[in-house]
């Protein structure tokens, strides 16, 4: 079956674009999460027609399809399960069209987020989503995970910036969803597609909304003697009606490693550093800066420094955006969570994490999209010590439960993927999950698109999925089928 699929694929793509060597399959077994899966074949198509062919071949040969961009996802969304064909979209990398007058651009899914931004900048425009991986992550991947980033505080997540998405569905047909105009007819299925982590189809083109670059930008760097002081300032800034573009918090452990790399002048002896970016017109930026500085002073900020020159700002952000990658300099292994709490409960959430760390005897470092209440606690450990992983997983679950009790969410921006799907029942009822499953089945009745992600494949409380009978799963489907 796999040999046959490989022959079919090679016929269409050529042998160089089909990988079947065990070592290659192993390299495609992982993304940027801490999981490693396994797949049967990897295909690297160069255009939409080839993607269609790949999906059809997978269907004919009973393979599941795992779409993959640059593999920078953090939740195992593109970690393949046995029995799958990984379809890599990195070679679909053309910027098809930029239309400043309509504030839109059509791009292929493999275009890198930052490459698009670089093309747009001379036009005074940008694509607002800025995940920390923006330098290497693809637009297709950003759409599939509904990527966030520091600036989504003011500009919103990827879902707010997509006009239309073209998908290759599980049956190999190509469908477009949404339109270039502000409204389209029919159900707004873009919401379902954006953040669907490859479970509804393979993205082959995206129409993105373009945003004007702000006239003035200022970054304030604040240092604090305690993490709670820092978190308090964040809540106060939001409550005061200020509208920063981004508010980020890092604790001392993180600041130290990023400063080593970025040389941005972070205060390495502060217990916590908060970055606040203000943008807009000069007058409003100045006014907000004064307001933020005043709040910071009243909360005992030990460092208040403004960076308005672009180079310094870029270094500060480079530091922040490299934080995740720099962690191995503290501990050989770590697990990163992506929990959200109401932003007024940030201090409480940080305290809850501290309790878990103390109880479990673990070191937990913090990177926080503080303005959104989105915490990324990093639990450090050494996998070589026996039982360490189980211990960390238990601690992680405690953190997740604590945040849910505060009215939070199990994921702010990384997605559910494989890593967090077992947390879904903590947040949603069986009926909610069934409906989610139905929505997925509406796109992919036979469940060949990235099975096992977001929702666990086992157990429904409520009858069969809608449309499930419409297409029978292929016989050779194997382990991924429910």
């Amino acid at each position, binding site marked *: 079956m796999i040999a046959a699929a490989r022959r079919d694929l090679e016929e269409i793509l050529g042998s160089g674009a089909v990988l079947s060597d065990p*070592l290659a399959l192993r390299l495609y077994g992982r993304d940027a999460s801490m999981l490693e899966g396994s797949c049967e074949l990897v295909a690297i198509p160069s255009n939409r027609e080839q993607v269609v062919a790949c999906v059809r071949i997978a269907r004919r040969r009973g393979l599941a399809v795992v779409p993959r961009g640059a593999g920078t996802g953090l939740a195992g969304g593109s970690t393949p399960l046995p029995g799958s064909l990984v379809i890599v979209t990195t070679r679909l990398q053309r910027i098809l069209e930029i239309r400043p007058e309509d504030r839109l651009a059509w791009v292929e899914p493999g275009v890198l987020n930052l490459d698009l931004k670089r093309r747009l900048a001379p036009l005074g425009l940008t694509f607002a989503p800025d995940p920390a991986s923006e330098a290497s992550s693809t637009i297709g991947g950003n759409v599939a995970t509904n990527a966030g980033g520091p600036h989504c505080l003011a500009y919103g997540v990827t879902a707010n910036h997509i006009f239309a998405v073209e998908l290759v569905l599980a049956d190999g047909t190509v469908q477009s969803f949404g339109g270039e105009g502000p409204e389209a007819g029919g159900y707004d299925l873009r919401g379902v597609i954006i953040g669907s982590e490859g479970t509804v189809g393979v993205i082959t083109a995206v129409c993105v909304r373009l945003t004007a670059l702000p006239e003035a930008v200022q970054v304030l760097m604040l240092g604090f003697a305690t993490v709670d002081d820092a978190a308090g300032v964040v809540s106060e800034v939001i409550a005061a009606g200020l509208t920063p573009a981004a508010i980020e918090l890092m604790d001392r452990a993180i600041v130290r490693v990023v400063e080593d790399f970025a040389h941005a002048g972070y205060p390495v002896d502060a217990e916590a550093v908060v970055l606040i970016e203000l943008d807009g017109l000069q007058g409003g930026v100045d006014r907000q800066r004064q307001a933020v500085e005043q709040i910071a002073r009243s909360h005992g900020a030990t460092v208040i420094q403004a960076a308005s020159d672009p180079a310094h700002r870029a270094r500060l952000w480079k530091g922040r955006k490299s934080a995740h*990658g720099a962690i*191995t*300099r503290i501990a050989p292994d770590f697990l990163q969570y992506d929990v959200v709490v109401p932003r007024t409960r940030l201090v409480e959430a940080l305290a809850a994490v501290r309790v878990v760390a103390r109880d479990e005897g673990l070191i937990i470092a913090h990177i926080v999209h503080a303005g959104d209440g989105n915490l990324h606690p990093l639990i450090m450990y050494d996998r070589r010590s026996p039982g360490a992983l189980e211990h960390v997983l238990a601690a992680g679950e405690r953190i997740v439960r604590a945040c849910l009790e505060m009215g939070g969410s199990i994921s702010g921006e990384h997605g559910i993927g494989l890593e967090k799907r077992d947390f879904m029942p903590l947040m949603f009822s069986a009926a909610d999950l069934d409906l989610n499953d139905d929505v997925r089945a509406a796109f992919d009745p036979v469940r060949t698109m990235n099975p096992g992600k977001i929702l666990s494949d086992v157990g429904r409380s409520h009858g069969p999925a809608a449309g499930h009978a419409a297409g029978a799963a292929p016989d050779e489907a194997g382990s991924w089928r429910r």
Partner: protein
Amino acid sequence: MSSKLPAGVRFLGAEPGAVAGWLTHDAPTDRDIASCVGCGLCLPHCPTYRLTGDETASPRGRIAAMRAVSEGRAAVDATFSRYMDLCLGCRACEDACPSLVPYGRLLDGAKAEVMAVRARRARLVRVLGLDILLDHKWAITALSAYLPFVRPFLPPRLRRLVPRVSLRELARPIPAVTLPKGHARGTVAVLTGCIQDSWFRPINRATVRVLARNGWKVVVPPQTCCGALTAHYGSLGAARRMAAKNAAAFALADADWIVVNSAGCSAQMKEYGELIDRPDVASRVRDLLEFLDEQGFEQPAGSPVARVALHDPCHLLHAQRIFAAPRSVLGQVPGLEVVEIADGDRCCGSAGLYNLFEPAGADRLMRQKAANVAATGCHVVLAGNPGCAVQITAGLAELGVDVEVLHPAELLDRAYRRSARG
């Protein structure tokens, strides 16, 4: 997150009792491998990943392959070798890595492993060429003497990579000692290089003149190849041997500084501390423009050309993280405008001997680079590394544009001569 993962999925990391599949003592260390978290920030900086979009041709993928071997899940086999051989070794990924993964060191280790499993014939060619020939400068010179006669008969691809060597030059070695006019600021020992000294001796002469002009006593100790090519192709043993010879020779020369005019070589000599425990030598090594920038230099009266495109050799930009120094030095030449090359941080595809062993990828990178150089509209491009110079020359020739490729030392030398004349 749960430990109830579906079948076929596991958390990263070695299983207890795993036995590494390494074959040699030079293998990448677990510690270095573990420093990669797999975030992927390196991907867009990797020329081969950019060309292919393929994880197996990326730094993250190569380290994952090393990890697989170290965790006993894969062997050092033909596939592993292929992935490592496809790497240019440009180390652009290192700049982008927040975990500061020592990729160059990992790759040298992996190449040493690959060497151990190469087919005997391939190994023989490389051992003869890299370990033995490069270690004997007289042999290079002797062979180079035949080049003018052999060159026309070489296959076109090789021919364009081999410069026209002047027999007259070959017959006139660089003097062992060159004294500056007047009082000497100090002594610098110069690495003349292996190939560089035979094929590009005028560059070495220009280098010596520029240094002497700036008040340095220049000595050329008897020396051998720096060992870079050898190390990058998996002969760490031979590379250490050459390094030790050079370290001894340069230590004897008793110079204040060791100045190197080829980026690949200066990068390698700076590693002598780690490679052969000679930090005393390594700490005195400077690339030529880095040295002039640090020590200050005499401003020429004018520039022989108005605009130059500046090429950043990977081993300067990435391996040594030197970006500002060349711009600072050239910026002080009156009437000279330095023009940046688009995608300037992208390798030209020369990459040591990559050019010879991976022609397809090398050619694509060469064409990109040549096109970007041509797009600057400059009539001169500066390249401080012989491999890059050869590659860019070939690319520009293929493109049919008339751009002269010069070493920065040659430009400075011409500028000084011009001021002397004027």
